């Protein structure tokens, strides 16, 4: 292991920062709750108001955990996609998975009037959105994998993913044209992303799926390092490229699909975090990037979530607004500083 002192300091710093943000995220919100009450609640005591206990333990705590999981999962997806496609502008949604999920949800929310009675009862059930989102990304995933098996050229997969995105986006546009104002608002709100209001059992599912996705990603560390030299060298070092590609796509799909199902499409995180990790640690070594991406991903989304709560006000901004506001300038500055080494 090529650990340097600088890396150790950075990792420790990031770890502390993550913890601090976690606590800060739980302490801030629409309702002003004094810090002391926050700590009392978290350590098992009773806050001054029972409503506050509930808010802290059953609303803010799940939201903070969700934020961390979302940040870690999407960031890892972005890292995998950027190395696999050797494209610095790739994100976890580049395979079209988020678009597939959006299409599924759009059909359920906007298209329920177009569907006969039997299906309508499913459409209006409480798990409809989660199931539709999962189904949507799953079908896109199958299509992408089927194509990937046949294609030798990795770039073609990227283009196909982008085409799926356009296609599903077009269908969603048509659906919005024929929907009512209420349906449109509901769909739009879903598409803006939301980290709150997840039950503990949903968080458990999210946690399990993300862990599986991260384990699969970890198995790709060695092949990803080999791929830094290109496919031909990687194969000559014993890497099974097709299997690696399959594993990477599978891991990304699990991570992205599950997160989109529960929190809606969260933009920019997957695109931006791998770059931040590479800039900060100045390395392409995936052993380091794996952990760096996880930590920075968690930090970024916790931070964005804090900004969505204009503290003390009832108005909460949607998470995508903040991630885009932070993400877009970062991407622009990356493109501007186009030097050979950093630009990966």
């Amino acid at each position, binding site marked *: 292991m090529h650990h340097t002192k600088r890396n150790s300091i950075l990792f420790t710093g990031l770890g502390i920062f993550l913890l601090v943000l976690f606590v800060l995220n739980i302490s801030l919100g629409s309702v002003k709750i004094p810090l002391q009450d926050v700590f009392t609640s978290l350590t098992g005591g009773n806050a001054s108001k029972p409503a506050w206990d509930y808010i802290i333990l059953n609303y803010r705590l799940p939201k903070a955990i969700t934020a961390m999981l979302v940040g870690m999962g999407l960031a890892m997806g972005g890292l995998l996609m950027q190395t696999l496609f050797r494209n610095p502008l790739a994100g976890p949604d580049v395979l079209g998975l988020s678009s597939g999920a959006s299409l599924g949800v759009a059909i359920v929310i906007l298209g329920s009037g177009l569907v006969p009675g039997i299906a309508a009862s499913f459409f209006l059930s409480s798990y409809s959105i989660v199931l539709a989102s999962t189904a949507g990304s799953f079908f896109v995933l199958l299509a992408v994998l089927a194509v990937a098996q046949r294609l030798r050229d990795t770039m073609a997969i990227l283009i196909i993913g982008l085409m799926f995105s356009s296609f599903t986006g077009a269908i969603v546009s048509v659906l919005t044209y024929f929907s009512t104002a209420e349906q449109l608002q509901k769909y739009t709100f879903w598409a803006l992303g939301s980290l709150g209001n997840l039950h503990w059992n949903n968080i458990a599912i999210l946690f399990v799926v993300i862990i599986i996705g991260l384990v699969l990603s970890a198995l790709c560390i*060695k092949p990803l390092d080999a791929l830094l030299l290109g496919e031909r060298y990687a194969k000559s070092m014993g890497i099974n490229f097709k299997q690696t590609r399959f594993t990477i796509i599978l891991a990304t799909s699990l991570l992205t699909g599950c997160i989109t199902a529960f929190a809606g499409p969260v933009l920019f995180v997957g695109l931006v975090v791998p770059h931040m990790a590479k800039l900060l640690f100045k390395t392409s070594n995936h052993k380091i990037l794996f952990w760096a991406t996880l930590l920075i991903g968690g930090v970024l989304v916790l931070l964005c979530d804090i900004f969505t709560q204009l503290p003390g006000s009832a108005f909460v901004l949607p998470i995508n607004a903040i991630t885009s506001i932070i993400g877009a300038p970062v991407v622009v500055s990356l493109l501007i500083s186009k030097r050979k080494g950093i630009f*990966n």
Partner: protein
Amino acid sequence: MDTFKTVLSAQQVSIGYSSKKEIITVANNININLKANTLTALIGANGIGKSTLLRTLTGIQKPLAGIITLNGKDLSSFTSAELAQQLSIVLTESLPPSNLTVFELVALGRQPYTNWVGSLFDDDLAKIDSALQLTHIEHLSNKKHFEISDGQLQKVLIARALAQDTPLIILDEPTTHLDLLHKVNLLRLLKNLAHNAGKCILYSTHDLDLALQLSDETIVMSKENFVQDTPKNLIANKVFDMLFDDPNIFFDENKNGFVVR
């Protein structure tokens, strides 16, 4: 020379491409015998099939006929992982952009031997250091791979192949893009590695004169012929006379080189 162990051999091999519709044969009756401690050059006109031959010898393509044996075992029976410990390659294609340092790049050569996550242990580090020393690039260890010259980068890639610790190393046109001085230094390095580190090294090239002067054996591919022999014997047997189609280019025995009329 004859006492050295055979590393790679090809017997009555035909190379080419086969699809559902047709079979295209690029060359046949290929017989090769590559031994340890030997630097062998592969020469031939453009389009004659050198790249196809290299791809077949490295297991990327299947031969249309014949058997290729590596260390006594049929080449097609190797798994990708097993092959990686027997054969390493050096290419001239440019590397994708990344932040790899020279050390990290050379260290990647250890992948066939490391654990699931690629950790380096003492013996790995020793091999890497030895590779860096043999190629005289220790002073470049901490530089990023895009900060060094092309010639230095090529040494780095050779060091990587050395770190991979394989009995056979195959290089694809390593002397292209280099000036005469660097060409000579490179070939001297390869010869050194062959003789002193016991490697079997095969490289393809268009630099015929240097190949004749510096390699132990040469393989000549032409339309009529496929010959492997020492340069001396090849010249004596007038193999180079009909190497090119052009009657205005001929091989002058006295000058030991090609002349244009």
